[in-house]
C-alpha cells in the first residue's frame, strides 16, 4: 500500500527539458518494477506536436508533447496526476489549470522560487476543488513498488539499494529533496524500506502540510511508522506534534529537525531553505519543534546521524510486537539491470559494431581537431600556413617549405578570372537574383567541368600516363590520346597562343623550374608535348589547367585531388563576386531580346487535343 501515488497513477508533465529528464528517470523505475509508463503526455507549447523518446528498459516509447492541458487530457483520459516542471513565472498558471481539470487528483510542483502569494492561492484553490497539491519546490513522491513521481530516488542503482522495488513499512516525510532520498536509504538500511516518501518542499507555504500526510499514512495499513525530517521555521512540525499527541496513533513517529545551529549563530544570521526562518521570540525554532515532538511521543535524535539508530530501534520493536512480519530478502540478482547503451557495451569490449564510415584525414575527438594527427593550433603556432593544411587534408603529407610556396602560388594564380567566365558569371547571376552566398557560389561551382576549370585532374592524369607509358615517344602518346581520349586535356587555349602566351603559365613554369629544386617529370613531358602540338597549331599551348595538373602531379598529390585546387581557388573569386554584387545592391538581371536568337516556330493555334 501507499499514499498519493500508486500503480494506477498516470501523469502528465507540464514543462520542457527538465520534465523530459524526469520522465526518463521515472521510466527507469517503471522498468524496475515492471509497470506501464507513468508519464503519458507532456504539455509544453514551444514543443507542441513533438514526440519525446523515453526508454522503458530497452523498449523505446514515444510520448507526445501537447500545446495545452485540455487536449492532453482528452487524448489520455487515464491521466490523474500533473507534475509541474516550469519556471516560477509560468508555474502558477499551469498548476491552476491542472487543479481545475476534473480528472487530475494530484498536482506536484518541483518549481523553486514560486512567490508566496501564488503558493497560498494555489493551496486555497486546491482545497476548494478537493485536490492534493504537493510542493512547490518538491523533488517528488515515491511509492515503493508502485510509482515514482519526479526524480526522487536518484539513479537506477540507488532505487535498488533503497529497496524501492518493494513496499516496506516506513512512511517518509521531508521538506528537503536530498533528505527524502537519504531517509529512504535509512529506512532500507535500518528497516524494511518505505511505503511512500513525500518531499513537501522547503518553501514557507507548502501546498500540503505534514499533518495531512501523517493522517494519510495513519490510514494506510501498510505504513507502521513515519520518518519525518523537518527544519526551523513555520509551524508544520509543531502541528505534527499536536496531531501525534491529540489521540492514540497507530503509526510510530521518528523525526529529525534541522536548524538548532541557529541558536549559536550571530544574531540575525539565517540560512537554509526559504521557509527555514525563525519567527519572533523563538517561535518555530528547531529546539522548540524537537521538544514539542518529543513531548508528543516521537523519537527525536539530537543529530541527523542519530536517525539510523532510531529507525533501527523502531523497526526492531515493530518486529518484536509482530506489527511487521520479517520478510525473506529478495535476491538483488533477480532484479533487472538497465540495458546498457551501445557505447557502454563497446567500452567493455563485448560487442563489435561495423563502422558506418571511415576517415583517414582528421579527428575531432580530442580537445581540438587534428589534421592527419597534427593539432591545428600547434600548426599555427609553429608557423605553418593554409597550404600545409591543404596538403595534410588532401594528401596527408606535410610539404617542404619549397613545396608550400608552389601550392600557394597555384592558388593565388587561379583565384579569379574576371566576371565573364562561366563560374563567376553563374555566381553573379545568383547574387543579382538575391540568392544567399552559399547557394550563389555553388551556382558558379556547378559550372566547373570539362570546358571550364575541370581539366586539371585529367591533364595531370594523362601526362603522368605519358611519362610512364610513352617515355621519349610523344607521337605515340598523342596517337594514343587521339584514339582513346580526344583532345589532350591541358593543351589548347581559346585566345592565347605561342605569340601571345598566358603569363600565368609562363610564371609558374619558370618559378618551379628556376627557383625550386622540384623534380618535374610531368611538367617536362607536357612541355615536350606542347612543342609538337604548337608546331601543328599556334594555340595548342600548355594551358593553365595543364600546367597546374602537371606540377601537382610532380608534387605527389593524389590524382583525383587536382581539380580541388581549381575549385578551392576559384571559390575565393566567386565569393568575392557575390560580395561585390551585394555591396552594390545589384539589380536582378536577365538577357536582352537582342542577345537571343529566337529560332523557334512562328506563332500558331493550339490544335484540339486528340
Amino acid at each position: 500500500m501507499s499514499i498519493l501515488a500508486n500503480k494506477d497513477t498516470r501523469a502528465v508533465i507540464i514543462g520542457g527539458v527538465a520534465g523530459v529528464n524526469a520522465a526518463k528517470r521515472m521510466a527507469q523505475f517503471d522498468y524496475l518494477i515492471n509497470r506501464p509508463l507513468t508519464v503519458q503526455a507532456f504539455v509544453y507549447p514551444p514543443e507542441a506536436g513533438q514526440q519525446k523518446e523515453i526508454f522503458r528498459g530497452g523498449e523505446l516509447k514515444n510520448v507526445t508533447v501537447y500545446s495545452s492541458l485540455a487536449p492532453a487530457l482528452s487524448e489520455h483520459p487515464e491521466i490523474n496526476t500533473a507534475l509541474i516542471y516550469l519556471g516560477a513565472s509560468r508555474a502558477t498558471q499551469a498548476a491552476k489549470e491542472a487543479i481545475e481539470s476534473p480528472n487530475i487528483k494530484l498536482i506536484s510542483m518541483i518549481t523553486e522560487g514560486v512567490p508566496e502569494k501564488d503558493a497560498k492561492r494555489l493551496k486555497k484553490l486546491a482545497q476548494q476543488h478537493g485536490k492534493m497539491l504537493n510542493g512547490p519546490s518538491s523533488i517528488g513522491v515515491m511509492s515503493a513498488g508502485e510509482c515514482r513521481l519526479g526524480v526522487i530516488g536518484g539513479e537506477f542503482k540507488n532505487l535498488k539499494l533503497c529497496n524501492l522495488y518493494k513496499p516496506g513499512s516506513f512512511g517518509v516525510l521531508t521538506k528537503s529533496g536530498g533528505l527524502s532520498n537519504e531517509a529512504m536509504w535509512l529506512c532500507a538500511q535500518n528497516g524494511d524500506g518505505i511505503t511512500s516518501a513525500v518531499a513537501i518542499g522547503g518553501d514557507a507555504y507548502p501546498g500540503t502540510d505534514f499533518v495531512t500526510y501523517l493522517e494519510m499514512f495513519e490510514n494506510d495499513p501498510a505504513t507502521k511508522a513515519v520518518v519525518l525530517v523537518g527544519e526551523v521555521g513555520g509551524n508544520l512540525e509543531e502541528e505534527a506534534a499536536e496531531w501525534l499527541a491529540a489521540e492514540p496513533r497507530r503509526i510510530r513517529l521518528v523525526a529529525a529537525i534541522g536548524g538548532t545551529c541557529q541558536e549559536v549563530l550571530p544574531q540575525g544570521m539565517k540560512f537554509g531553505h526559504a521557509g527555514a526562518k525563525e519567527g519572533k521570540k523563538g517561535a518555530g525554532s528547531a529546539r522548540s519543534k524537537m521538544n514539542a515532538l518529543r513531548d508528543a511521543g516521537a523519537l527525536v535524535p539530537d543529530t541527523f546521524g542519530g536517525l539510523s539508530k532510531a529507525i533501527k530501534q523502531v523497526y526492531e520493536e515493530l518486529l518484536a510486537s509482530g506489527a511487521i512480519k520479517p520478510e525473506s530478502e529478495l535476491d538483488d540478482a533477480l532484479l533487472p539491470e538497465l540495458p546498457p547503451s551501445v557505447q557502454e557495451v563497446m567500452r567493455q569490449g563485448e560487442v563489435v559494431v561495423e563502422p558506418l564510415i571511415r576517415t583517414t584525414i582528421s579527428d575531432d575527438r580530442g580537445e581540438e581537431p587534428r589534421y592527419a594527427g597534427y593539432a591545428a593550433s600547434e600548426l599555427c603556432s609553429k608557423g605553418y600556413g593554409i597550404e600545409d593544411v591543404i596538403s595534410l587534408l588532401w594528401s596527408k603529407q606535410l610539404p617542404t617549405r619549397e613545396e608550400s610556396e608552389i601550392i600557394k602560388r597555384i592558388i593565388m594564380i587561379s583565384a579569379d578570372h574576371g566576371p565573364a567566365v562561366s563560374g563567376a558569371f553563374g555566381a553573379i547571376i545568383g547574387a543579382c537574383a538575391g540568392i544567399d552566398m552559399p547557394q550563389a557560389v555553388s551556382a558558379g561551382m556547378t559550372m566547373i567541368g570539362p570546358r571550364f576549370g575541370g581539366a586539371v585532374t585529367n591533364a595531370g592524369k594523362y601526362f603522368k600516363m605519358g611519362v610512364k607509358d610513352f617515355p621519349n615517344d610523344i607521337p605515340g602518346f598523342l596517337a594514343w590520346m587521339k584514339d582513346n581520349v580526344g583532345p589532350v586535356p591541358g593543351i589548347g587555349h581559346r585566345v592565347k597562343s605561342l605569340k601571345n602566351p598566358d603569363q600565368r603559365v609562363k610564371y609558374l613554369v619558370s618559378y618551379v623550374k628556376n627557383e625550386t629544386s622540384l623534380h618535374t617529370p610531368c611538367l617536362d613531358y607536357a612541355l615536350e608535348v606542347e612543342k609538337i602540338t604548337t608546331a601543328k597549331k599556334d594555340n595548342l599551348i600548355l594551358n593553365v589547367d595543364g600546367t597546374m595538373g602537371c606540377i601537382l602531379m610532380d608534387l605527389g598529390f593524389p590524382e583525383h585531388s587536382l581539380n580541388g585546387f581549381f575549385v578551392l581557388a576559384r571559390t575565393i573569386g566567386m565569393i568575392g563576386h557575390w560580395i561585390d554584387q551585394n555591396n552594390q545592391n545589384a539589380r536582378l538581371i536577365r538577357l536582352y531580346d537582342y542577345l537571343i536568337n529566337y529560332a523557334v516556330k512562328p506563332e500558331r493555334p493550339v490544335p484540339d487535343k486528340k
Partner: protein
Amino acid sequence: MAKILEGPAMKLFNKWGIPVPNYVVIMDPSRLEQLGEANKWLRESKLVVKAHEAIGGRFKLGLVKIGLNLDEAIAASREMIGTKIGTAEVRQVIVAEMLDHDAEFYVSIIGNKDGSELLLSTKGGVDIEDNWHTVRRLQIGIDENPSIERLTELAEEAGFEGEIAERVGKICSRLVLCFDNEDAQSIEINPLVIRKSDMRFAALDAVMNVDWDARFRHADWDFKPVSEIGRPFTEAEQQIMDIDSRIKGSVKFVEVPGGEVALLTAGGGASVFYADAVVARGGTIANYAEYSGDPADWAVEALTETICRLPKIKHIIVGGAIANFTDVKATFSGIINGFRESKSKGYLEGVKIWVRRGGPNEAQGLAAIRQLQEEGFDIHVYDRSMPMTDIVDLAMKS
C-alpha cells in the same frame, strides 16, 4: 524573505497612498544644500539623518542623528558618508522630516499560511513590546479585501476614536493594498504618528520585507534586498554570490568568524543538519556552505578554495545526503581540484578532511577523492553506509 531599506519602502508607501514624512536619499552632501534651496520642508523642519545602509544598531554607531536643522543635517551627512563599519561603507544617507506629533501608533501586517494578519495598537513607539496586549488583530484571507468600514471598526476596537479611527481605517486599507500588490511578506510601521493640529499622519519608521521571488512581476522594483545575514556581506561571500547568480543549481557561503570546523556540504536540507551536528558535538562552525542542484564543477571548485582559505580551521566536513540528481563524480572533481590548488598555495596545513556522500556516480566520486590520501592529504572518506552526520562525531573525537 527580502528586507528592503527605508528609502524604497517609503517609495512603495507613497505609491499606495500611505502617508510618509518628506524625505530624500542622497549620496553627495552638497546635493542636500541644493535640495534645501528647492524644498521648504528641509529649511523649516527639524530633520533626522540616518545612514541608508543595511547596518544593524545604527543609533549606537552614531549613524542616526536627530533634531537637526539643514546646516547640521549637511554636516551630519558629510560625517556619515564614507564611514566604514567592518566591511560595510556608508554610501547613502536618508534625510527625513521629524514630524512634531501628538501620538504614536503601531500598525503592521504579516503574512501567514492563510493570507495575512493586520495588527493595530494605539500604543506605538518604543513601548509597543510592553503594550503587546493592546494589539488588535484581523486575519485577512488570501485575495480578500476588508472594507474601510471593517477596518475602521478594528481601529475602534483598538481604542481609536472618531475621525482618527476613520483615518486609521483608511490607512490600514491602503496598507493591505500595498502589502498585497507589492508581494510583501511583512510591513511594520512603528510609529505611525499624528499631528492633531492639521490631522496629518505619517509612517515615521517602517520595516518592510518583500518576496524577492516575485520580482519578475515588479518592473518598478529598482532596489536590491538587504543582506539576510544581519550584517553586510564579506568579499568572499560576495564572490560566491556572483558565481551563484551565473550558474544552474546553486552555491552558497556565509562566514562565521572564529569557527574551527568548515562546512563544504551539499543540499539545502542536509547542510543545516551538518551545522547542527557540529554545534551538538560542541564544535564551532567556521562557515555555512551549500551546493545543490548539480552545479558546475568549477563553481564547486571556487567554493572549495574559498572554504580552504578560512582562518583557524581544523576540520573540513565534505558532507551530503544521497543526491537525487547532483552528480557526485562531477562535483567531487571540483572539490578535488580546489583542495589541490589550496594545498599548493600553502593552505590546509594540519587540516583534517572528512567525507561522506552518496548519489549518481558515487563510487567513482568517492574513489577519486580517496586518491588524495596518496597526495599527503589528511582525508577520511566514507560512503552511504556511514550515517550522514556521524563524520562530524568522528571529526570531533579525533
